[in-house]
């Protein structure tokens, strides 16, 4: 017996398991792609020499970021837009989520689904649709209102602070809150509300005094998430803000970099400021959801809904109107826009044409970009499935010492505005010599896409794994399968629907992503999402809207497929 054990003990005192090695490799790779570039950005903000000259360190960039009125205005604009968006969208989202989850609102399953679909509308497409409706001179709503007596000119202007806020509320703020809050409201124990009803409170008073306070942690968490998401987009301000010289931090960074003499120091200093402002939000959000993310609802309690009584019809009309605004109008007008001779001009004689489609579909530029987008999106989806599932698996199932850190790092991209992540990756791929050849290739964009989709992808797969339970895997291990065989033959197979759904979502995300890609593309790897932005910059709105419409249709199809395959919106929370 001594001989046998001696042989077994031979590897020595340090047991280096394959699993630990693999986990460390994953953690290191994720950290290299997420944390390291951000550190590079921070370092770069102190490097003041113009590109091409030897490095010189100083605080000029910071002085510019804090001192120049343009940059200070951008920071203030960012804060104002973010604050006003949250102020409007949160009460609205809480109301809608409560109506969908806790009342007998007619058609609530369909309405929830509509919000889910609206969540997938590309903000860029939505922006173009609302230009059609709210352009100060030609916008349909404005021209219609101008026909009314006493209205001399169209009252709305999309190219304004409120125009930007309006589009933001509809694209990023409202829908994401509704789809996160509705499952949370639904999973609340009805006994809390019933006790209040029995004690004599009506539906409204119960909602305000019991439901909302009980849900306060969830609502606060969603508010923090929403604030982080607010800072992600860039295309809305880029399209709507530029005409009246309204800059937020992301468009400023873009503006500082995409000029003849890029101001890397000022751009990166601005990025660091925004990241620093994000950190408290990140920690607050993590603290709020600690321990809660792991609880699964067992369904032991009743999920009875409140009758709305005579408010049922008005509530339904209200929510349906919201659906029309967030989903119906953007889709209809994005499609209509593609058939216009002059984008936005409804009053010219015979405004309709098929020429835009013909122009775009035969344009060499379009075909190259379409090819790029397909390579990019499929590559991102496949890579995301592997990477995200590996990360989720390590976090949920192993006892690897660094799994908490991995959890945090995988969550980080959610809090990093897309344009900053793009900037950081640009630095990584230009600054590290063996990565430089990848600049201008699809690989770089795929890396960006996988990182951008990581928080959501890992989250969805993780809840799937938690529902699966550990015994199915342990049974495979005791039956003689190695860790890798178990992962391949049990985990991957059982998780297939979830993984395909994650693949679809990442595919859509990569196809429509602008913020992460704007700084990373060259003419060689330019995808459709950047092409539409370039079209707008060249004032070719007709072409832009055709591309935007294509991206929107792809996004919607992907969202519907992901839903059909069996992803529940609850998986997002």
């Amino acid at each position, binding site marked *: *017996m001594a001989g*046998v*054990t001696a042989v*077994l*003990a031979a590897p020595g*005192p*340090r*047991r280096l398991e394959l699993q630990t090695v693999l986990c460390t490799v994953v953690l290191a790779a994720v950290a290299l792609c997420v944390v390291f570039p951000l550190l590079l950005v921070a370092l770069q903000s102190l490097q003041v020499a113009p590109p091409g000259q030897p490095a010189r360190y100083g605080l000029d960039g910071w002085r510019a970021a804090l001192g120049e009125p343009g940059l200070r205005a951008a920071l203030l604009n960012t804060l104002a837009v973010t604050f006003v968006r949250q102020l409007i969208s949160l009460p609205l989202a809480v109301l809608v989520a409560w109506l969908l989850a806790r009342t007998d609102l007619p058609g609530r399953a369909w309405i929830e689904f509509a919000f889910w679909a609206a969540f997938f509308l590309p903000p860029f497409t939505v922006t173009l649709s609302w230009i059609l409706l709210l352009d100060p001179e030609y916008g349909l709503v404005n021209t219609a209102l101008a026909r009314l007596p006493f209205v001399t000119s169209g009252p709305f202007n999309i190219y304004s602070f409120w125009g930007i806020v309006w589009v933001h509320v509809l694209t990023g703020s409202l829908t994401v809150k509704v789809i996160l809050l509705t499952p949370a409201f639904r999973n609340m124990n009805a006994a809390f509300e019933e006790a209040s009803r029995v004690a004599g409170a009506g539906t409204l008073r119960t909602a305000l005094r019991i439901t909302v306070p009980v849900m306060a942690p969830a609502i606060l968490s969603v508010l923090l998430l929403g604030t982080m998401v607010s800072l992600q987009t860039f295309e809305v301000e880029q399209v709507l803000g530029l005409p009246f010289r309204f800059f937020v931090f992301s468009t400023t960074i873009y503006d500082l970099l995409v000029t003849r003499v890029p101001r890397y120091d000022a751009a990166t200093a601005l990025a660091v400021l925004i990241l620093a402002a994000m950190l408290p939000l990140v920690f607050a959000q993590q603290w709020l959801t600690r321990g809660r993310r792991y609880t699964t609802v067992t369904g032991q309690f009743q999920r009875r809904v409140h009758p709305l009584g005579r408010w049922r019809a008005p509530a339904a009309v209200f929510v349906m109107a919201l659906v029309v605004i967030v989903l119906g109008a953007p889709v209809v007008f994005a499609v209509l826009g593609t058939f216009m001779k002059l984008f936005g001009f409804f009053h010219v004689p015979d405004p309709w044409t098929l020429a835009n489609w013909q122009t775009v579909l035969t344009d060499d530029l379009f075909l190259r970009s379409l090819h790029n987008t397909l390579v990019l999106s499929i590559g991102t989806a496949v890579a995301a499935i592997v990477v995200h599932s590996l990360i989720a698996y390590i976090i949920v199932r192993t006892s690897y010492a660094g799994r908490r850190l991995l959890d945090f790092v995988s969550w980080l991209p959610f809090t990093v505005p897309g344009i900053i992540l793009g900037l950081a990756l640009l630095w990584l791929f230009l600054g590290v010599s063996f990565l430089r050849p990848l600049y201008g290739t699809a690989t770089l964009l795929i890396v960006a896409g996988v990182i951008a989709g990581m928080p959501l992808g890992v989250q969805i797969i993780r809840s799937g794994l938690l529902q699966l*339970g550990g*015994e*199915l895997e*342990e*049974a*495979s*291990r*005791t*039956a*003689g*399968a*190695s*860790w890798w*065989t*178990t992962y391949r*033959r*049990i985990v991957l*197979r*059982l998780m*297939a629907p979830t993984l395909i759904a994650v693949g679809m979502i990442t595919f859509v995300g990569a196809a429509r992503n602008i913020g992460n890609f704007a700084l990373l593309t060259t003419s060689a790897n330019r995808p459709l999402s950047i092409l539409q932005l370039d079209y707008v910059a060249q004032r070719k709105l007709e072409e832009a809207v055709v591309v935007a419409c294509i991206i929107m249709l792809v996004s919607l199809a992907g969202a519907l497929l992901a839903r059909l395959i069996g992803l529940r919106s609850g998986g997002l929370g």
Partner: protein
Amino acid sequence: MPAQPGGGETVLALDRVSKRFGEAAAVDSVSLAIRRGEIFTLLGPSGCGKTTTLRLVAGLEQPDGGEITLRDRVVASAARRLFVAPNRRNLGMVFQSYAVWPHMTVFENVAYPLELRGLPRAAVREKVARVLDLVGLGGTETRPGTLLSGGQMQRLALCRALVYEPDLLLLDEPFSNLDAKLREQMRMEVKLLQRRLGITVLFVTHDQVEALSLSDRIAVMHRGRVEQVGAPRALYEQPASAFVRDFLGQTVVLTGRVTATAAARVGARVTVAMNGPLTGCTLAGRSTSAAPLAPGAAATIAIRPEDIRVAPGDAAGSEPDHLLGTIETLSFVGDRYEARVALGGEHCIVLLLTRTREWREGEGVRLGFPPEMVSVWPA
């Protein structure tokens, strides 16, 4: 070829194995030896560390202390930082939830471990068919595993764990999800199967009836430690601690003071004078303590209710080894009566009475406490 349980070589040995979760010790220095061909049960209330012990054996947890030896091969040793992965231990395990893989058919579920061992296709087919027939699942090969009934899933999980002839079969509360009748049936099936195949089984349960009826030997666990190891009957009749005594079966416990001791050894005859409302009565029993029970020392006497001899009658006066009582409530539960009997006015015990006689509430009874059935514990 039924193996001789209780004899033969040691298949599994745990040597002072410990496992901590944070501050709490889930398993605290547990040493066990499981012999070839026996059904060995870890029994205890929830949270006593029995499942953790099983998972340590399976390799699903790593011990913080001690050593686990499987067939003369050390599979886990904290001191030497040695750990053999679960897939290299050649164990079979049936999980509480059965863990039947939902994406595989019955055949695929059972064939999986054989494929992993690189068996040729024909041999896999033959072995799977044989083991499925053994438990009466023949003919269900192409059905998805999760479309089976609870009992069938249980059998399937058993097949999957047995098909590759593991050195040791681990059962983690496998019957807890079945209804009462099916549970009893599966218990018998497992015992029959074990006797036929001669496999060694390590079984975890919190159900004492299950443990007593199925096991060759039982280790009663409490707060991460092994309280006592022994054959079911020995545990039941000679519990070594108050915890084992009260956890296994029903016990009538009365208190008193020692009046006389025969000798300072386990099993020696001790006489105890009852106190409280039973003052004036004396009972005799076997000492459970190797230390001497000095006259006048407080003591507890314990007896299984079924060992109390119940006779009608309220003859006055006390005779040794007898107490008088009154039937307070009487419930007819089918095969017998369940009676609450008041002793000396306040103390109540629950006894099972045969239905050979018509009992009445309020009737006086004479309760005989045979000294060979009574155990005396230091208080």
